[in-house]
């Protein structure tokens, strides 16, 4: 049973998270400030940590820094601060994910699972060698059996969606405009107004991203096109 440390000064929120995670079969240890969290980390075998930023005593940022001195467990920051700068700061000092309050409990559970998968199962990259595999972070495409996995979980895509994703993953980092994608996938000239490609992209995002509004892999470059972030 995997153990998750939840640290927030708001007891009700900790309680709620406890209920969700326990429901998903995780063991939960609870802390209400940074010092408590650090103490618990020393005495328990913790696999993942969820930490709030604004806490009395030691805040989430400094707690994360402290933890990172000794441990490499996944850390998810859960904060009411939703500014871009806050997210960038949190991710830069060592957190693996950043979720803003108020959060969707299902999304939180999904992200916890994703991080754990990444940490425990997919830590070693050289496990899968068979076939032609394109990888980008937790996203892997096996072109031989046309399988796509995100953090090890199999994703079902239509052929067109698969082709679009393959095109983008193959050329990770490059931005493709709608016309370019259309011409590559449909093999005919893109004539005039059509938002078919945009709709397909949206479908792909909904399938491979945890939160399609804040995509990790398939990013929209507004007014230019789409790309897969190189990781």
């Amino acid at each position, binding site marked *: 049973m995997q153990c998750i440390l939840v640290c927030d000064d*708001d007891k*009700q*929120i900790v309680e*709620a*998270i406890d*209920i*969700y995670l326990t429901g998903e079969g995780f063991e939960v240890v609870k802390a209400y400030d940074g010092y408590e969290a650090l103490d618990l980390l020393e005495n328990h075998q913790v696999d993942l940590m969820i930490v709030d930023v*604004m806490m009395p005593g030691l805040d989430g940022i400094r707690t994360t820094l402290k933890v990172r001195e000794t441990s490499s467990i996944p850390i998810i920051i859960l904060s*009411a*601060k*939703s*500014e871009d700068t806050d997210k960038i700061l949190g991710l830069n000092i060592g957190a693996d994910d950043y979720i*803003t*309050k*108020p*959060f969707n*409990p299902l999304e939180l559970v999904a992200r916890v699972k994703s991080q754990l998968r990444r940490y425990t199962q997919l830590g070693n990259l050289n496990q899968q060698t068979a076939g032609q595999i394109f990888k980008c972070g937790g996203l892997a495409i096996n072109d031989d059996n046309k399988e796509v996995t995100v953090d090890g979980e199999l994703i079902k895509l239509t052929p067109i969606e698969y082709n679009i994703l393959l095109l983008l993953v193959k050329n990770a980092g490059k931005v493709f*405009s*709608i016309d370019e994608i259309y011409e590559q996938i449909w093999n005919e000239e893109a*004539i*005039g*107004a*059509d*938002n*078919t*490609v*945009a*709709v*397909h*992209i*949206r479908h792909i995002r909904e399938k491979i991203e945890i939160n399609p509004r804040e995509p990790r892999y398939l990013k*929209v*470059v*507004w*007014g*230019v*096109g789409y790309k897969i972030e190189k990781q």
Partner: protein
Amino acid sequence: MKKKKEQVVILHIICVFLVVIGVSIMYNNTHYGEGISWLTRETYEDTSVFMGQFKSDIDNIFNYMKYKGVFETDGKLDYDRLVVRVVDGPGTTREYTLDEMVRHAKSLGYYLDERFKVNGRPPTPKSDEEQLKVEYRAYEPNFQSTGPGDALKTVDELAYEVLSHLGNYYAFHYKFIQNPSNMKFEVKYQSNDSDYKLYTNVSGKSIDELKGLGKYLYITGQDLYVDTNLIPIPQNVSSELEKMNPYNNNNYHMIVAVNTSYPYTDSYSVSADAYNNSRLLFIMGLVSLCMGILGCAITLYFMISMTGHMEYNKDTISLSRIDRIPTEWSLILLALATLFFLLLGKYILYKVIHLFLPVEKWFYGELAIRVLILYAMGTIAVLSLVRRYKANTLWKNSLLRRLLKNLRLYIKNHRFTTRVILFYGSFLLFNIIMALASIFLYMIYDDLGSRILSGAFAVILLCGDLWVFHQLYRSAWETDLINDALLKISGGDTSYQIDTGEFSGKEQELAQNINHIGKGLETALQEKVRSERLKTDLITNVSHDIKTPLTSIINYVDLIKREHIQDPKIQGYLEVLEQKSQRLKTLTEDLVEASKASSGNLKLEMADIDFVELIHQTNGEFEEKFALRHLDMVSSLPDESILIRADGRYLWRVLENLYNNAFKYAMEKSRVYIDIVKDDKKVVFTMKNISTKPLNIHPDELTERFVRGDVARTTEGSGLGLSIAKSLTELQGGTFTVYIDGDLFKAQVEFFIR
């Protein structure tokens, strides 16, 4: 301090007297008028006085040589010598000896005084006295009558003549032969070894010995040049010597020497002493003058630095009564006092001077008194001015300043236009007067003075015009600077300040006022920015604080839902709770965004964006959402790509809000029209839809915060969407407009094409 001051004043007076003494000595010296250069002639022998004496003594020597032949026999005075022969009226020749003539003279009452001069005046011939024709006079052997009556003399006259010549002989004899003299001479004409004539007052000395005495003149018959150490060489001595030569050969010589150590008292030694004394006195006078001037300067410096101060090292200046009245008045008072003292001097001190000084020195004495009075009063005036200067009242307390102040008041209180007219009028007047004066002088007079004056007028005219040009140029330059500043300030650079250091007059005032305006604007702007930021900060913080409890609400509502309570009533309540908490969530997020967008507190990353592509992407994102409400998306987009300059993320937010708006408020099963129209400069995106509810509201109000089309606010949404969209569009340099025509809602987003 006071004692010190008195000491300095006394010292100064002493120094002034030193100057006066020095000047007096130099002024009254016999050598006054020769300039200071006479001091370089260090000895008496170098002076023209000595030369004059020497020359006259040479003449005396020649005279003596003549008299010797006339009055002496074998080197002794011979009273029996025949001196005059006359012919009387009837033709009888009469002869007189020296003895007879001297006795006749004595009988007439003449005698020789101590300087061997005949006392009294020459006798005037009486009308009845017998005129005698002079045939021979021993002292004038070569006399030739040149006019009628020249040769006629009375016996009295002849006797007087003889006596006076005898006096001359005695004088020389007494001076140079009888008494020892500093001047030695020897004249010798030689025919052969035994036959010679020798005139001398020295015996047994060789020529070289005589030369060694000091100054000498040595002339021989053989040499053509004159051997002497005198400068300049006395003239006509050689010719005179030759004239006296009885032998008609060149075997003669003459030496005249002056013993410059002056062992004997004679006219030379007396003159030399007098010369040396006066030279010494002159030098003393000069030294006294120089020391006096130096002392005056030093004490004056101390007086100037000390005056006004009552104590050491204190800057407080105490002013006497005379220093308190206006500067010009005190100067006039001092001038009156000076006049009074001058008059006093004239009536009292002059008389005192007259008592003590000889009449020829009176003028000098009076002059000295006048100068001293003027100097004393001048010093007092200067010290008073210095005190005023120290106390800063020199200008402040002057009538001229008051006058100027009043004048300035007079000029200043006119309007600018009046001032320009006044200024131009006086400029014109100045030009005309100067030009006329110059031309008039040039045309009428042609002497040098008038030409110079005419030129001066022309130069003044030129300078005046140049000055006016400079002022005009300066004014224009200042106006330009002010204009620049106004442009800058109106362009938004409110912190711009004009450097008023080089400005003057009205322009300076103007520039300073503009600076004040700029400063005021800047302050207001900063205040506004600060309050905007405070507001944003407040909203952000509040939203953070709301979010935490909101998280609990949402989570626990969700948890209750998971309990699968079958009671439909509770399910209904839960639905409401969930809906409202979600709305609260949107609301807090939108609130932060709206405040940031409207305060411009966002960092834009502007890039070239294909607007058409962006609309395609947006359409793609919303196609299925619109399908949920059966909204038909009718878009007419151009095939070409249209590039604009914007931040893609925020432009997406604008469009997202618009599309969401249509999704929320458009009538179900209606069409949403999406167009892009392009003209020369702009690209216009238009979205049109039919509202479900009547839009009885002004379009401008829709883009204000918390305003929604449905006044009842029953639908979801924060009422911030359009406001955010408008703010964001404007931040990116576009325009966002909303039109309402009945139930038709139309939104336009305009951007400039790159």
